[in-house]
């Protein structure tokens, strides 16, 4: 074996006295694709950042040899020479990693001027070549576009062009595809692999997504709480994980365990929509904007039914109108077309709305923004009772809150551990999502709208939350309208599936039909990307 490109030994990173990375060691061979896997807080991003000494306020110790020099102790000036030139980095969110006030061409040219000493004209030409190589159409025109004028995928391509401009020997890719839609993820990885093969550079891919690792990497490093718990060739680790944490990660693909109702019985329809349309008023461009508002139709006539005790899964990429559909079915957005919850429709009278509110409840994606930070758990979970059962005394309300918390597995029976008086920020993401479910369940709804209920959670937590939702469905016969972009979640939860694209339902049917015999090319693409 040749000399490793990077050898890291006993790397420790501490923030304000608390150690986040506890003496890890690994090496990267030239031209190798190494994946660093772990959940949030495992220290994987910090590890990568500290290789370039970019981790802020961190105390880094240990050794990281790159071509015989120690990255961690070399003078700042030498390191600055290496950054961008020999070691480049791409970040998760290209929108914030690119300067919004410079065109992407200028940003790429700037790197070339700085590192390669090219003239303005030369660097501009080179930048256009780079942009073309990353597969952006019409490169000369795109080079003079500002970041906000590009799509998410194009921005990430521009980032890659910038990082690879000087043909670095090592690329640090920190969750390069997490902010992108599933169908784009494969393309971006393909692009990085292509460059890797051509330039013979090494790639350190930081990710939480095991699918990516399986597809992309040669070797994998599993991190948990600042320790490397397992490392080895991808095939081996996936086939025979040794460490329990690795096993847990690999098992975290959600399992299917939904309520299977007897199919013979005629299912009751609890929610039915036909021709459901939602439009947002937008300013027309130019002179037309003076005379009236235009309309952007986010949902162009959706038909669907939710059956009692079943889950309707809605899948689509960002901008497909699936969240709009969720808000419309909650009666939170004005919509056209017919939407019936049981026998009722939204917006007829205030009392009727109030009755329907009790029937349809919601759980949102981000458990950090869906709980008011200034209310205690008791106030948050008990709020629905204040509205729908104003006759309850404070003690009765508290009793019901405790029951709801037990139902979602946040507390054990008879032991509330002082949970009631705590604030949301004291809970982890998974616990917060349980709180949000408890808040929805306390009014005993029949239908639960789940808007990406697990996308913000780590994979192992995601599995637990989905398990909880499945248990609740079995026990209470709840109906779910499940919005997600994740095929795995649909596979685990749904009975029927709706595939959405650009505000339209492109395909619908039972889970088996849609997943096994997708009729539309778009559905096939989604399924392939997630495989």
């Amino acid at each position, binding site marked *: 074996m040749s000399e490793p490109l990077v050898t890291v030994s006993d790397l420790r990173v501490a923030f304000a006295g608390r150690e986040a990375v506890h003496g890890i060691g690994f090496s990267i061979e030239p031209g190798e694709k190494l994946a660093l896997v772990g959940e949030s807080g495992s220290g994987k991003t910090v590890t990568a950042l500290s290789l370039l000494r970019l981790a802020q306020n961190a105390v880094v110790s240990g050794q990281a040899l790159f071509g015989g020099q120690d990255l961690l102790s070399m003078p700042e000036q030498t390191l600055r020479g290496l950054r961008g030139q020999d070691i480049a980095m791409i970040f998760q969110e290209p929108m914030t990693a690119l300067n919004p006030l410079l065109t992407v061409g200028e940003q790429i040219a700037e790197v070339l001027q700085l590192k390669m000493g090219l003239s303005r004209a030369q660097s501009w030409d080179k930048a256009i070549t780079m942009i073309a190589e990353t597969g952006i159409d019409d490169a000369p025109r795109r080079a003079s576009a500002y970041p906000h004028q590009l799509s998410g995928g194009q921005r990430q391509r521009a980032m890659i062009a910038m990082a690879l401009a000087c043909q670095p020997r090592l690329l640090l890719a920190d969750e390069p595809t997490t902010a992108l839609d599933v169908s784009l993820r494969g393309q971006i990885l393909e692009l990085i692999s292509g460059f890797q093969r051509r330039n013979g550079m090494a790639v350190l891919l930081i990710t939480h997504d095991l699918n990516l690792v399986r597809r992309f990497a040669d070797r994998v490093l599993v991190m948990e709480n600042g320790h490397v718990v397992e490392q080895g060739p991808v095939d081996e680790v996936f086939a025979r994980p040794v460490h329990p944490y690795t096993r847990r990660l690999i098992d975290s693909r959600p399992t299917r365990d939904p309520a299977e109702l007897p199919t013979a019985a005629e299912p009751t329809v609890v929610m039915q929509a036909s021709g459901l349309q939602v439009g947002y008023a937008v300013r027309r461009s130019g002179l037309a904007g003076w005379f009236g508002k235009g309309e952007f139709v986010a949902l162009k006539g959706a038909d669907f039914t939710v059956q009692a005790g079943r889950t309707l899964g809605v899948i689509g990429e960002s901008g497909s109108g699936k969240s709009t559909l969720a808000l419309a079915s909650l009666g939170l957005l004005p919509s056209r077309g017919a939407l019936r919850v049981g026998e009722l429709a939204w917006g007829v009278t205030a009392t009727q709305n*109030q009755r329907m509110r009790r029937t*349809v409840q919601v759980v*949102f994606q981000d458990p950090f*923004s*869906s709980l008011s930070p200034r209310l205690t758990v008791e106030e948050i979970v008990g*709020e629905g009772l204040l509205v729908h059962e104003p006759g309850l005394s404070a003690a009765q309300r508290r009793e019901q809150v405790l029951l709801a918390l037990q139902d979602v597995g946040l507390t054990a029976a008879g032991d509330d551990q002082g949970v009631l008086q705590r604030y949301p*920020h004291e809970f982890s993401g998974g616990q917060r999502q349980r709180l949000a479910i408890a808040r929805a369940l306390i009014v005993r709804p029949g239908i639960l709208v789940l808007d990406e209920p697990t996308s913000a959670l780590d994979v192992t937590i995601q599995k637990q939350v989905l398990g909880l939702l499945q248990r609740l469905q079995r026990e209470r016969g709840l109906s779910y309208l499940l919005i997600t972009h994740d095929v795995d979640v649909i596979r685990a939860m749904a009975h029927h599936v709706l595939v959405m694209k650009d505000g339209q339902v492109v395909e619908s049917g039972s889970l088996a039909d849609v997943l096994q015999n997708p009729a539309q090319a778009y559905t096939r693409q989604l399924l392939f990307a997630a495989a």
Partner: protein
Amino acid sequence: MAFVAMVLLSLAAELISNDRPLLVRYQGSLYVPVLQNYPETVFGGDFQTPTDYLDPFIRQRLAEPGNWAIYAPNPYGPKTLNYFAKAPNPSAPSRDNWLGTDDRGRDLLAQLIYGFRVSVLFALALTVTGVVLGVLTGAIQGFFGGKTDLAFQRFIEIWGSMPELYLLIIFSAVFAPSVALLLVLLSLFGWMGLSDYVRAEFLRNRQLDYVRAARALGVGNWQIIKRHVLPNSLTPVVTFLPFRMSGAILALTSLDFLGLGVPPGTPSLGELLSQGKNNIDAWWISLSTFAVLVLTLLLLTFMGDALRDALDPRKAES
């Protein structure tokens, strides 16, 4: 805390700095001059006028065996003229007048204490009305958005372009100047900055998921504002408060300095500053007033930071 202590002390100004004794025993009976006016005849004088307790004759009567009087630590009120000063006015600090007197012979320490009290109470009142108006209009604009927001915004733009200072000058020419009039006029213009902050916070908060979740639960508009949006929108208000207060103190001081503020005779820091300007060699006037102002404004600023940290549940825990 130092600021609160200063305010509390100044609220008890009558006990600290007063030309009337706190308690008098005269020929067997007790008098409380600090609360009640007694004519001079009570203490053996010749006139029915209120007693001047600094008069050597009265002092002598009160010092007779069997009689006694407890004076305030600083035996001058804000309007008391020291007729018996040993140096010409304005006189430098001495044992009689700890911080000296102004050019009319009034004790400077007494003036500062009472002036500080007027400033702080005025600023407090102005801040309270400003916050109530500002939060109310900001909340309505931010929460309901759309046309309501637009109408309010245009109104604020028009209202904000009115020249405040000229209005004050005109009004002080038309009406007899009084603290209440000043308060009303300044309040009318003092709420706009705050309402912008509150509006922005409401606009941001009302589309967060927890507000949507509350809507989905069927919680009413008023309850959503009260329980969800308002508490989460108050951080800028709280942070803003002390700055608003120091702004109010400064406004009052500068108006007084220009002679457009409180009616003559009311103790005020601004008037003292203008005296300091007119008597530039009486350094004790300008210097001590300046010191009081700086200290007040500084403490208010510190208070703002402390308040914000104290009200944040995330920080309170750690």
